[in-house]
């Protein structure tokens, strides 16, 4: 598999600032979602993206437990135990919503009808392989949910993560060491310090935050 590729002709470096915080990252991901798109936001950090969709963007949120037109998290009297998102958190419905059962919901996902899904990740490989469901650690109880269906189903699979783990290890890797969720499925990786596009030729850095593309590349491939 090819190394991460630096396409200097298109990279935009934001060096007058530090890395993106979680909110800024969510805002950036939201910015790249086209108006009118049908979008699934994964459990956890991707959920934050919903707060940054432009009102009037016409983006429709899908939740895999059977709904299009999901609204914000439910508060107070809005809480209805029959209306939850994929993380089992009470949510609301927007006008124009639709409910459907699980086989229909996953037919929609598997059939390639969602425009975008945003997922967290443990690792993404240069080829766009995704690992986000299982650490593989002994004693860890595995749980996959809808992660594999989203990974192979959405037209655009967007990953949101920090580029480096707490131990400094890159999460964008030549080959995933964690158990895979999907093969060659990721199209875009948004991280705190850089945005990458996954192309058939490899991974291209397209935007950086607080670091130069050269610095990022050298930290990603320290052995070179």
């Amino acid at each position: 598999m090819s190394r991460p590729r630096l396409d200097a002709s298109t990279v935009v470096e934001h060096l007058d600032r530090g890395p993106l915080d979680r909110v800024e990252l969510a805002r950036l991901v939201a910015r790249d979602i086209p108006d009118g798109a049908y979008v699934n936001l994964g459990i956890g950090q991707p959920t934050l993206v919903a707060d940054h969709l432009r009102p009037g963007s016409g983006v429709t949120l899908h939740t895999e437990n059977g709904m299009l037109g999901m609204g914000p998290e439910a508060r107070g009297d809005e809480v209805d135990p029959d209306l939850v998102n994929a993380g089992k958190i009470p949510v609301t419905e927007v006008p124009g919503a639709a409910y459907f059962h699980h086989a229909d919901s996953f037919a929609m996902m598997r059939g390639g009808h969602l425009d975008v899904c945003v997922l967290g990740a443990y690792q993404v490989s240069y080829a766009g392989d995704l690992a986000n469901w299982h650490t593989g650690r002994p004693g860890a109880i595995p749980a996959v949910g809808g992660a594999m269906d989203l990974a192979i189903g959405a037209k655009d699979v967007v990953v949101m993560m920090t580029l480096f783990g707490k131990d400094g290890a890159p999460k964008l890797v030549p080959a995933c060491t964690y158990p895979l969720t999907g093969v060659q499925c990721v199209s875009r990786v948004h991280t705190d310090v850089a945005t990458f596009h996954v192309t058939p030729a490899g991974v291209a850095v397209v935007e950086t935050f607080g670091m130069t593309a050269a610095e990022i590349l050298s930290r990603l491939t320290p052995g070179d």
Partner: protein
Amino acid sequence: MRAQVTGDPAAAVAEVHDGDVVMIGGFGDAGMPVALIDALIAQGATDLTVVCNNAGGGDHGLAALLAARRVRRIICSYPRQVDSWVFDGLYRDGDIELELIPQGTLAERMRAAGAGIGGFFCPTGVGTPLTEGREVREIDGRTYVLELPLRGDVALVGAHRADRAGNLVYRKTARNFGPVMATAAERTIVQVSEVVELGGIDPETVVTPGIYVDTILDLSLAEAVAR
């Protein structure tokens, strides 16, 4: 992307191309999108492959499309009707190709296309001429034949009502193939008697979620335009 609403039948079918696979809803006349078919005839696309349960009756709708010689091949379960004289004539003269598929397999192959299923083992038609020469497999003591997804470039669907999000409801047995064709085609064009505002369709009762709908011909607008 969000469905577009139009009152102009010509605009609704503008992007149908020569050689397209066009799925056409309806069971006989129930659910047949006649306004869209008429617009397609006027639009002129030809060399079409049509997927429809029937091959048209009388001289209207699908029969008129056939009579205009726009259809090279039809994929259906039941071409023969008391009033299918247009199809019958073309078929007997060798002017149209016919691929006959059991009705449930037709529906399920389209469902598979919409649901991202690469193929499925189906018990229907095993041991009959309609599955001759095909891959079979015994699973759990029963024999099945492998069926592949059936995809469309365009689906023309007759529904009852839409909301501005493209959610559809149908009327009675006019529902038939519309919902499954909407999932199986690259582009789904629907005709409805009216488009209501968001919130005008109970989310519990939506049959086709808006994600499957690209263009909606609002017949109430079309009539206003025509007047």
